[in-house]
């Protein structure tokens, strides 16, 4: 009974802290702008199944991608075990899902195997970060804190897996020593117990209990650290794939406010009907974190800084300052800085800083070729180019700021309908003296 009360209290604290965090992040979302509608649930479900559960884009890098897939699929199975632990903890039962019979054997056996595989994968991930200095994990945006963040999360996952294996091993052990039936199947832990062997029943039971508590408390702590780390990814990736932009990568979102203005210029009658007077005056493009659409912010929270985007960015590859990963990290960091201030002082509050320039420089923005390699590569369907272009929109339309050559292009398009300074009169010159061989 004491155990149940302690557990219920721990669970309550976990949920309380978690929902407070989520509520704050929700408040941050209310500052962002509306984006596309989340329609076509069937299609979205399909995208989620292939991207998240099928790990489709992760496999664009087959070897390391496979290790990640193991971690992901393993988490899905082990999650069932964690749910069981919560029920057990509250109800005072032991392995309550055993009522599932053969299915339980399957769940426990796969969970046990995955625990080992995940532990191995995590060791590989950690050594890649600590010993091998993979280029993808470096870059101007990868400060010391980013590396610490990554290593803490990986270490926690490793501890989770070790405590799980310890729990299963001790469980197998104490059941065997007590001559009781083992519920579920634990192929890996059985081997481990066989190797370690011995022990007495009471000792094994204590070990089982302590691993159980370690594992579940680590989960509680982990769940509450995640939203403050890049590993919020664990919670948000699956929903982020469901919330993917479904349009072709080549398509930029239309600015309806501009359409109203242009139509006003081109035909005053239709435009007055289309633009109600209470339409709030909105800043064109993105200058600061509250100007982004909600999906940009969701993307930034989902980003786990894997750097696949940056590693395929032509600008970054050739040494320009642009890094698509940095754009996402900057947005997240800026909201973390300004969000609380806006909660306190309202959305219009200014702290004299902005996402543009204080975080993301013009030089970075103008280096993008909009080639969409970053968006194509991102395993969780983050879209960087739409945000980059939205920031260019602010620069050009609010500040009339652009590289000189581009200003010349704008002038040419406006004056003679082509990016170059040629007259429309010459548009058919290519067709002069055109002949075809008669075969």
């Amino acid at each position, binding site marked *: 009974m004491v155990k149940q009360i302690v557990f219920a209290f721990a669970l309550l604290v976990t949920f309380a802290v978690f929902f407070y965090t989520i509520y704050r992040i929700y408040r941050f979302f209310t500052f962002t702008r509306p984006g596309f509608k989340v329609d076509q649930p069937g299609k979205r479900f399909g995208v989620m199944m292939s991207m998240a559960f099928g790990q489709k884009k992760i496999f664009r890098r087959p070897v390391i991608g496979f290790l990640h897939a193991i971690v992901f699929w393993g988490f899905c199975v082990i999650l069932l075990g964690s749910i069981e632990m919560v029920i057990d903890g509250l109800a005072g039962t032991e392995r309550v899902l055993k009522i599932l019979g053969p299915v339980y054997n399957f769940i426990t056996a796969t969970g046990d195997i995955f625990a080992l595989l995940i532990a191995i994968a995590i060791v590989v991930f950690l050594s890649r970060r600590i010993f091998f200095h993979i280029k993808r994990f470096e870059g101007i945006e990868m400060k010391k804190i980013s590396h610490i963040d990554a290593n803490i999360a990986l270490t926690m996952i490793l501890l989770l897996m070790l405590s799980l294996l310890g729990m299963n091993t001790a469980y197998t052990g104490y059941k065997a020593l007590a001559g009781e039936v083992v519920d579920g199947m634990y192929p890996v832990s059985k081997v481990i117990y066989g190797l370690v062997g011995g022990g007495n029943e009471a000792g094994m039971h204590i070990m089982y209990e302590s691993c159980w508590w370690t594992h579940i408390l680590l989960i509680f702590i982990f769940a509450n650290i995640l939203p403050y780390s890049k590993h919020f990814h664990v919670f948000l990736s699956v929903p982020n794939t469901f919330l993917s932009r479904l*349009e*072709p*990568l*080549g*398509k*930029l979102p*239309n600015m309806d406010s*501009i*359409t109203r*203005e*242009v*139509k006003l*210029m*081109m035909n005053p009658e239709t435009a007055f009907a289309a633009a109600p007077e209470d339409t709030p005056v909105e800043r064109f*493009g993105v200058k600061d974190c509250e100007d982004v659409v909600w999906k940009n912010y969701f993307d930034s929270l989902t980003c786990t800084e894997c750097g696949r985007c940056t590693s*395929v960015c*032509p600008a970054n*590859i*050739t*040494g320009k*300052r642009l890094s698509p990963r940095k754009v996402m990290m900057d947005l997240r960091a800026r909201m973390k800085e300004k969000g609380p201030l806006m909660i306190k002082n309202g959305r219009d509050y200014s702290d004299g800083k902005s996402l543009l320039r204080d975080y993301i420089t013009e030089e970075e923005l103008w*280096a*993008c*070729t*909009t080639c*969409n*390699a970053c*968006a194509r590569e991102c395993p969780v369907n983050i879209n960087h180019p739409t945000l980059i*272009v939205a920031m*260019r*929109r602010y*620069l*050009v*339309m609010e500040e009339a700021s*652009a590289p000189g*050559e*581009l200003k*010349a*292009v*704008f002038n040419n*398009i*406006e004056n003679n*309908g*082509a*990016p*170059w300074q*040629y007259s*429309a009169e010459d*548009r*058919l*010159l*290519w*067709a002069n*003296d*055109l*002949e*075809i*061989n*008669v*075969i």
Partner: protein
Amino acid sequence: METRKIEVPVMADMFARGEKPEYLFWVGCAGAFDDRYKKVVRAFTKILTYLNVSYAVLGKEETCTGDPARRAGNEMLYQMQALTVIETFKMYEVRKIITICPHCYNIFKNEYPDLGGNYEVINYLVFLKQYIDDGKLKIDAGALDNVRITYHDPCYLGRANDIYSEPRQILNALTGNMVEMERHKSFALCCGAGGAQMFKEAEKGEKEIFIERTEDALKTDPAIIATACPFCMTMLTDGLKYKNKEEEIKNFDIAELIARSLNL
């Protein structure tokens, strides 16, 4: 060999005669003004003539789609251009558009619908592939003498619109010696010209993107680098010059290769 003069049909003239073509052939600014790319347009026009396609161009009534303005952040200018173009299309009752430039293709297909411009937009490679499939366009694989060709995927055909197979199927019909770069299809590296980069100096860095991409191509030891975009063509041709390879290795558009194989 006997030759025949091609009179390129212009929309306004056809309408004046009370005729209406099936397709609008959108030439694009590069097609109209870039000396190298004019040759691509001429080659494609020869193929259209050879296939007896009912088409017309807008000629002097054509203008910029607004793509470079849009991607450089000038949404206002883009929409003014787009709405003007949509008006012109309305005037000529345009339903089907053939484009050679992938940037024009992308903006017509994906972005004009938001402004009320809905058309059947066909990329020239998809268009030609259909003629090959229908048996109306017969490519002689021997004509190019099995020359080694590598293909550079334009971002706005590939990643932006998932057109990967048609150019490859056509090239495989043209030569038995088509070779892929290491980074190809959705992994292809940009030539460096997209997003209005074509018109400006690159930001400071260690290297130009077009050189990086040209090196990708050179690693395949090709005789021809095939492209399907005016900007990619400019970039890779510059890359070949930079590498002093412009004598041995040529950069052609797929339309030019088809016209050559047909001896048009």
